[in-house]
């Protein structure tokens, strides 16, 4: 895996690779080079399987991070490429022509994160949700608890304890000193 990255790093811009295991590595790449890297890895280096395509919402940085995880079954290697996108009006590049399965992931990202992938098949259709009009629910500025409280009725009588304060009360009733 390291040797593969050494081979590629002269031609592409890589961030610092994070090795979670010897056969699993995460590396950040530039958006403009993503397609070239993915094509080369697929056709030359034997990374034939797209394991997953997912997103992380870095709301503080105003960015979305796309993770393209690809797998080389012959050599048992997994490489994850990270791409950062602007959160404002987020648009990614479709890779459905490299891996047809990516179209499904891209439909999901479009619905759950609101990241658009122009040109991807059926990307504007509903994927799981029916008649959803609110913010995409996986975005971090969408508060799922507040939404559910405003939409569905609670049954009275349900009591919830914050585990920390509850256990502190049960186990250490007189902490801090004189609290009791």
């Amino acid at each position, binding site marked *: 895996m390291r040797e593969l990255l050494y081979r590629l790093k002269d031609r592409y811009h890589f961030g610092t690779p994070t090795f979670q295991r010897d056969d699993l590595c995460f590396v950040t790449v530039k958006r403009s080079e993503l397609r070239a890297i993915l094509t080369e890895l697929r056709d030359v280096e034997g990374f034939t399987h797209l394991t997953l395509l997912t997103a992380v919402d870095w709301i503080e940085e105003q960015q979305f991070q796309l993770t393209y995880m690809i797998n080389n079954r012959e050599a048992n290697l997994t490489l994850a490429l990270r791409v950062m996108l602007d959160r404002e009006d987020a648009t990614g590049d479709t890779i459905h022509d490299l891996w047809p399965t990516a179209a499904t992931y891209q439909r999901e990202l479009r619905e759950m994160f609101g990241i658009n992938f122009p040109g991807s098949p059926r990307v504007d259709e509903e994927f*799981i*949700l*029916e*008649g*959803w*009009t*609110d*913010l995409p*629910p996986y975005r971090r500025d*969408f*508060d*799922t*608890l*507040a*939404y*559910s*409280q*405003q*939409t*569905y*009725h*609670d*049954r009275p009588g*349900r009591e*919830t304890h*914050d585990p920390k304060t509850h256990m502190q009360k049960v186990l250490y009733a007189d902490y801090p000193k004189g609290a009791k």
Partner: protein
Amino acid sequence: MEDVDDKFLKKNKEVPLREELRPRKVTTPDGQEIEIEPLRDYFCEAQPKVHPKAYSKIVEDFYNWARSNSLWILGFGTGCGAIEMRPLMTPRFDAYRYGIQWRPTPRQANLLVISGYLSVKTLKRAIRAYEQMPQPKYVMGLGSCTINGGMYWDSYNTIKRLDDYLPVDLYIAGCMPRPEALLHGFMELKQIIRKGEAEGANKYAENFAQYKANQKAVIKDWDMPDYNW
């Protein structure tokens, strides 16, 4: 609640009716122009009626005894409770000895078991299935998800109280209830029916407007008639 964002407000936008369901003018193959309204043309508009009781109490009691011995369940599994129902069909638990069996279509069933959490999308199908069942019919809610939301208490797409949307005759608590608990629940339901207290379907007919309002408040793309005969 500590974690709630006070400033978050959900948007209440209307979802437009799907194009193929809108009333419009079409041209028939022989050149005639007709107006169609798909949601009204193909469905009966009558509202559900209260099922009348028999003329004397002893006859009604006899009916109820007979009903309680024929609980036919619609094989419609939602959530994880559908898995707990499967062992009941095996020789180990053998629910069939109590006159309980599973049917593939709502037209042949009189008991709807909501076996776990209902997402809004599934709720629409559950309502359709329930309304197509012939009266007298009963609803059982399984597990804490149907009672107060259970572990989906903060989910954006899962209802919390089943009895807002369907008339529930009996709840079985647990997460999930074991097949033994289900069997016990069936026995309880039989007693409720024999006492003549399983009036869920009549409650649904009486409070029809209220139930519909609750259902339409969460199911935004309502693409079916108000009552599915």
